[in-house]
């Protein structure tokens, strides 16, 4: 990608602010374990994907992640609903007392697409997690979303989160990024 191509020449400040505000809302819902409300930010045809990341040589034609490889999440809305149902079952003992999350979203960039109702948004997500009296851990990832405007509101139609971790630095991934 050349510098000129990488630069977003049609910068739309209002739209960029709207997307940043949308992500702040999403992060607040996730921090508050308000998962049913979070689900409402997704389109019915959403694909939510967090691929596993492998250390591969630069010369390797296979990318460090790929669609047909194993993934932490490779989910439809129905799959995501099932995960939310677990959180809400009242029996998720490993979440009681609750984990404290701080989702931080930054580096938001917005690109237009040929479809006037859709845009591509790049962002960085960080989630600090703390449970009990443990030290906690921090997850880092770069996101690329396809956002769709439905009835005036932005919704997530596709999300890819590429983690900076080849080895997840903890026992689980008990949230959404």
């Amino acid at each position, binding site marked *: 990608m050349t510098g000129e191509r990488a630069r977003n020449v049609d910068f739309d400040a209002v739209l960029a602010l709207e997307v940043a505000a949308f992500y702040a809302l999403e992060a607040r819902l996730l921090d508050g374990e308000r998962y049913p409300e979070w689900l409402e930010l997704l389109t019915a045809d959403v694909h939510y994907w967090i691929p596993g990341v*492998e250390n591969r040589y630069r010369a390797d034609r296979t990318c460090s992640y790929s669609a047909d490889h*194993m*993934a932490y*999440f490779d989910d439809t809305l129905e799959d995501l609903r*099932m995960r939310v149902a*677990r*959180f809400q*079952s009242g029996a998720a003992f490993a979440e009681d007392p609750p984990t404290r999350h701080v989702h931080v979203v930054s580096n938001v960039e917005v690109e237009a697409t040929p479809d006037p109702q859709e845009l591509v948004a790049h962002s960085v997500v960080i989630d600090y997690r703390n449970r009990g009296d443990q030290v906690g851990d921090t997850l880092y990832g770069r996101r690329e979303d396809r956002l769709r405007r439905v009835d005036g509101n932005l919704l997530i139609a596709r999300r890819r989160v590429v983690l900076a971790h080849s080895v*997840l630095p903890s026992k689980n991934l008990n949230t959404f990024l």
Partner: protein
Amino acid sequence: MSVDVNDLIDMDRGRVDRSIFWNDDLYQLELERIFARCWLFVAHESQLSKPGDFVTTWMGEDHVIVVRDRSGVNQVLLNTCPHRGNRVCHAEVGQVRGFVCNYHGWSFGLDGKLRGVYEAPAFERTPGFDMGDIGLKTASVAAYKGLIFATFDPDPPTLEDFLGDFRWYLDVILDNDPDGTEFVGGSIRSVLACNWKIASENFAGDALHAGWTHESAAQALFGQSVPRLSDDPDSFAANVNGHGWEFNLDLVGNAATLGDRQILRYLREREREVTERLGEIRSRMVGSISSANVFPNLSFLPGQNAFRTWHPRGPRTSELQTWVLVNKGMPEELKVAYRKGAMRTFSPSGVFEMDDGENWEYSTQANQGFVTRNQPLYYGLGLGTEIEHPDMPGHVFRGQINDANQRAFYRRWAELLTDPPTAASGR
């Protein structure tokens, strides 16, 4: 070591001393007498289809390269340059023509032999330097129905003897289809602050936790609890040489958690063919409520087809690597369904696995307390339930709600720890 290992476990009464999950000296002994000695799972043959294909993995805390050489033989090479000790391979999977050390340019063939050195004339002038004497340390390698194992024991038993009659059980997943098995692409790695044995013994025999720990996932998937197993007349724990498999004969109990009708249809449609191949009992084990562990640290779940190793990282930490196993002859869409289903249930983001880690971490970390780690643990469930079964080999126990396989796991552990290595071991 001033501790007598045999004092730490009392399997006739079902008691375990918690120091085995905490003590650093015992851990070093495990690295020497278990991980540098046992046949350890290192790769699936499907990961190495062409010469130069490699994966890297761990044998204990020793990093190794598993690579197919030019003659088509799978080699297991210690990933350390014999010159200054640096790694010679830094990717975890890929395709190479050889291995070159980044430090001083020593290069090695796929068979581990030293092929070239940088500034060669200086070495050639050096008295006693002989390229033929130097190479990457190799392990002995053997395979059983697609699974590649390696050992650094200089005088190992055959893999067949190491697995023994556990092969009868392994065939349930490795040989229920004439085309054999393969791993789907990639793997997922994560870190748990738990002792490796706590995870391994769980898969060897702990059906008890399934209904309790995993209540939340069962509710989310089925809207109901895991069925009670303690009165299931067709439920067993079986073990051979410390390897354990707990199971019932419900065919699809584990597989149902993948939430995919085409998987259940596949299993039901194949039941007759699998019966012809493996007999009725094993045909009912293919996707049943079950779990298994090949001693010491290869675990898997029939049905979900999740395969994993618990690499030790000191006595209080383990690195988990997870793969998904499928039948090679299965339609592509089913392989995708297994891959996604296994990840949704048993990966660090899986709705089942998410509840395991916390339990195992506190089972380990609680032992920081001096008084705590002097409290014995109860492993007596199912004492006296051993049966003779006309078809099932090994030690067979009535009822999968049982600690029998865990007791066998720790018996084997103690047997190895108290058996000093021969002079050549690890050299």
